[in-house]
């Protein structure tokens, strides 16, 4: 068998630092989710140990914090974070306010990534409008228990549910969500295969399955899963590890590096993380490494911060035996429920609540 190649942590960190500096015009589709991209970059630096407040220039940390805080916006439906400035005009309006029916409101998924980004930057959260965030979550929850990504509509699927739960958990305040109602929505997304679909009636897929399980466990409601359901989900998840070593997101699809996290972390949450074949998983991720840094979804594709971060998160949860030769596959330990470095997750839980 071929030996496991090294995990080129330094190069991945460089890829992420480069993205934080700027992106080419061809990546304009990142604009509506810019803050999420920043989180994947900062998270990659955090997991590889290439980022610490001590080793990073104070001016950088300060500028990055300022930019994230500049996205916090307040208005009639509560407070949250915007993805970036792409809809903010530079004259005639107060940039951090939105009005009723605004075309530039805060976004639930972005708010989750903003809180974690600030925790990576070890911010004290003095500027956080906690009651505003609670009000915002309340405004986003729909009658069927799902959450819209924005208070004036937008997509409502399990990603948003997960982010609303993760925000409540970090705040240590669940008054922003009707938990039972949301859990019922999650149940309607479960499929006969044992995974969860993105919305009711949709096909089981790794991402929504992670969102469903992490939400249930963040709310400490694991009793909502019967023993039979738990076993069926574990079965479906392990079936998704394919001969290349990677995980696929759906039955009979090809492996994709991001599902190494979504499926691997789902197993961890169910207490079955040890069932992943870690060595084959690491080999697959090694084969997705781009020679100039960054990790792509599959071998010979272009790398991006999303696949880089999720691959690193998967390795952090499921490192190869002895963490590879010379332990160079060792990363910071990961909190699978919040999807962050454990130290960052502890920081968030300590500083975000009042």
């Amino acid at each position, binding site marked *: 068998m071929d030996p496991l190649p090294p995990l080129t942590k330094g190069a991945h960190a460089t890829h992420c630092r480069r*993205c*934080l*500096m*700027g*992106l*080419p*015009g061809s990546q*304009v*589709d*990142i*604009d*509506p989710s*810019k*803050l999420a991209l*920043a989180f994947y*970059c900062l998270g990659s630096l955090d997991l590889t140990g290439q980022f610490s407040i001590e080793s990073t220039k104070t001016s950088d940390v300060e*500028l*990055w914090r300022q*930019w994230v805080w*500049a996205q916090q916006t307040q208005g009639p439906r509560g407070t949250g974070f915007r993805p*970036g*400035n*792409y*809809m*903010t*005009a*530079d*004259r*005639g*309006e107060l*940039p951090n306010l939105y009005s009723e029916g605004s*075309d530039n409101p805060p976004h639930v998924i972005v708010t989750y990534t903003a809180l974690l980004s600030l925790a990576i930057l070890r911010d004290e959260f003095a500027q956080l409008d906690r009651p505003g965030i609670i009000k915002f979550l309340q405004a986003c929850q729909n009658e069927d228990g799902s959450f819209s990504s924005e208070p004036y*509509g*937008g*997509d409502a699927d399990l990603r948003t549910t997960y982010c609303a739960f993760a925000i409540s958990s970090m705040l240590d305040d669940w008054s922003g969500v009707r938990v039972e109602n949301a859990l019922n929505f999650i149940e309607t997304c479960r*499929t*006969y*295969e044992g995974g969860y679909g*993105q*919305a009711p*009636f*949709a*096909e*089981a*897929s790794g991402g929504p399955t992670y969102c469903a399980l992490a939400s249930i466990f963040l709310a400490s409601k694991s009793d909502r899963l019967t023993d039979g359901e738990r076993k069926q989900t*574990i079965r*479906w998840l*392990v*079936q998704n*590890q394919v*001969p290349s*070593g990677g995980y696929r997101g*759906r*039955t*009979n*699809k090809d492996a994709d590096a991001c599902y190494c996290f979504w499926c691997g972390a789902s197993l961890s949450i169910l207490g079955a993380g040890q*069932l*992943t*074949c870690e060595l*084959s998983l690491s080999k697959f991720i090694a084969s997705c490494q781009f020679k100039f840094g960054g990790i792509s979804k599959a071998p010979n594709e272009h790398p991006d911060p999303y696949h880089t971060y999720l691959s690193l998160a998967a390795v952090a949860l499921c490192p190869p035996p002895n963490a590879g030769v010379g332990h160079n596959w060792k990363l910071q330990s990961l909190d699978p429920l919040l999807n962050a470095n454990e130290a960052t997750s502890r920081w968030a839980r300590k500083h975000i609540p009042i």
Partner: protein
Amino acid sequence: MDHPLFADRPEWVDVVPLQQYEGVTPLAPIFYTPAYKDATNYFRGIVKTGEKSARVLDLTENIIRQNPAHYSAWQYRYKTLMALGAPLDVELQLMDELAVKYLKTYQVWHHRRLLVQQTERPGPELEFIANALQIDTKNYHTWSYRQWILAHFNDDTVWSRELQFVESMLDNDVRNNSAWHHRFFVVFQSGVRKGDEARDEVVRRELTFVKAKIAIAPNNASAWNYLRGVLDHSKTPYSNLEVFVAPYSLPHSAQEDATPEDVIDLENLLPSPGAQLPCVAAIEFMADIYESREDPMKATELWKSLAHEYDTMRNKYWEYRIKEAILNVR
């Protein structure tokens, strides 16, 4: 871009373009092209004044073609269409082109959903989706949209040809899990169709269907998951399928002598001579039957063969099944 910049168009001279605000040094700034900067400057200007006119449709289409993920351009376009009372069939025609071009963009489908809620004409949609699925047969957005159309309009007409549609998708690719999932949704998850009132009969029909598909391609995880789904849903014991599954769990050398042609059991088709046997999913299924009969010894034997011979990558899973079974006996 072959279009002139909005800044150079006389008909836009009355609009004040607004630059993007960057109060503090931005993280991951995007180096916009001049055409994109120009269009979005005018868009911010339009949003500021609240104008909803025909030229806003041109502007938002221009932005969407440069960046189909531009959330606000889609949203504002929809509001403008509503305010103008614009003909939505024209908009849907444009969407037919854009959806195929940007199949993987969420916004394209969301916009379509909003439009169809206004037109209330699901028929052309089913046809459009069928075409889009020819291009990308497993596209998650496209399938979800189809499921939404069916569940939302939910009348006899929309359902009438659905089973036939799924069958054609499976005929093209028997391993298309999206099609298998859709079949489960159509048959079991979305109420009872006309003619399908006798549920036992429906379960029998589905079992016959999936068994025939397993005979064609025995190592097809989608079909095995469907089979399990039907059994779980109808609370049918797995052991009812033993006669069918057992031959697939054995190597060719262990198959009984070929049955004469005239007594082929159409309900329980045997694996073909060229099939790759034994089939991992069949061994797993047989082990589940033994476990349900409280025969952990026989089940363990099969799990061991999976762990050590037929499915070694998952050896830790099969060892875990053995441990769990022993715990349950105790």
